[in-house]
């Protein structure tokens, strides 16, 4: 249980770091699940690469996750292509950690 808490903390730390990185990069795309307050700023962010989008779909399929629901709830977007590069990288890392048995979401 203690280990799970530590892992959970690490997972949230990663997300918090991604969020700070996004802010520093000038992208108003919080990773904490809130909707972006300004749609124009999201559209200015460098979008996730096609490879990242494909990877997210593949990982979600493998883990039987509802990716659209996760994207909508956490980032306020409908498709993985709408994430920023940093958001997509952070989410891929998080889901990979989960599939490796190191994540906090199982």
């Amino acid at each position, binding site marked *: 249980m203690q280990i799970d808490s530590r892992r959970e903390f690490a997972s949230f730390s990663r997300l918090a770091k991604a969020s700070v990185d996004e802010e520093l990069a000038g992208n108003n795309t919080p990773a904490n699940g809130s909707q972006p307050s300004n749609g124009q700023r999201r559209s200015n962010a460098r979008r996730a690469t096609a*490879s990242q989008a494909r990877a997210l779909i593949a990982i979600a399929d493998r883990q039987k996750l509802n990716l659209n629901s996760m994207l909508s709830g956490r980032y306020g977007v409908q498709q993985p292509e709408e994430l920023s590069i940093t958001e997509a*990288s952070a989410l891929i890392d998080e889901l990979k950690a989960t599939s490796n048995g190191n994540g906090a979401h199982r």
Partner: protein
Amino acid sequence: MITAVHPNEAAAQLTGRDYVSYSAISTYQSCPLRYFFRYVEGLPEQTVASSLVFGGAIHSAIELQFRELLSGNPAPDLDMLLAAYQAAWQERELGTVHFGKDENAESLGRLADRMLRAFQASDLSQPGGTILGIEEELREPLVPGCPDLLARIDLLIDTGSELVIRDFKTARSRWSQNQAAESAGQLLLYSELVQKLDPEKTVRLEFAVLTKTKEPAVDLYVVRADRQRVDRMKRIIERVWRSIEAGLFYPAPSPMQCPTCPYREPCRAWTG
């Protein structure tokens, strides 16, 4: 009132594609008539050099390696890489492949086995940093007055401080650093596109060269990207595009290029 046609539209009207690629520019530079047959006339290639098919098939295997890593799967084993290599060959009609002396599909299959083993054993099979793109297509209007440049990047990695563009090549022998520098035109242009992904980071250009030798080597070469060289490449693209727009198509006979050119017959029949 005369309205200028947008370069992308002009390209679409001329070639059916609303962009240019480095490959197209390079084809024009090596032989303007070959460019005409391929991109303007859209003639099917009657033959294809085995080296091109082989290089493409090795790329497919390497692509599989990185796609699996990005998706959080274990690295594929050798059989999986070879299956990707073979699948790429099966997309080709063997009769159209122009094999070199003492070379056939089986001998190239054995070579692929050795090269992919060497690749698996090398550090390059497990890149450090975060993979951002594999065979990633980027597209931007890079040169004013010219169509968008379409880039396909073999591997794009974020190391935290740098964005690394890594281009995989197969070669008869090991490259020299000079050879890497002279082959860097494509990467120099791609650096401009990648820089836009994150202007704060340095872009690093690398060639990963796998040799087609008895004991294959896997070497990494770093290429310097300075402003002057990038600007020079842009001027080349501009001049080549102006020539294409002006319809300057003519043969450029070469003892190196002509023997394996897929358009030898239409070239001989061409009267200008």
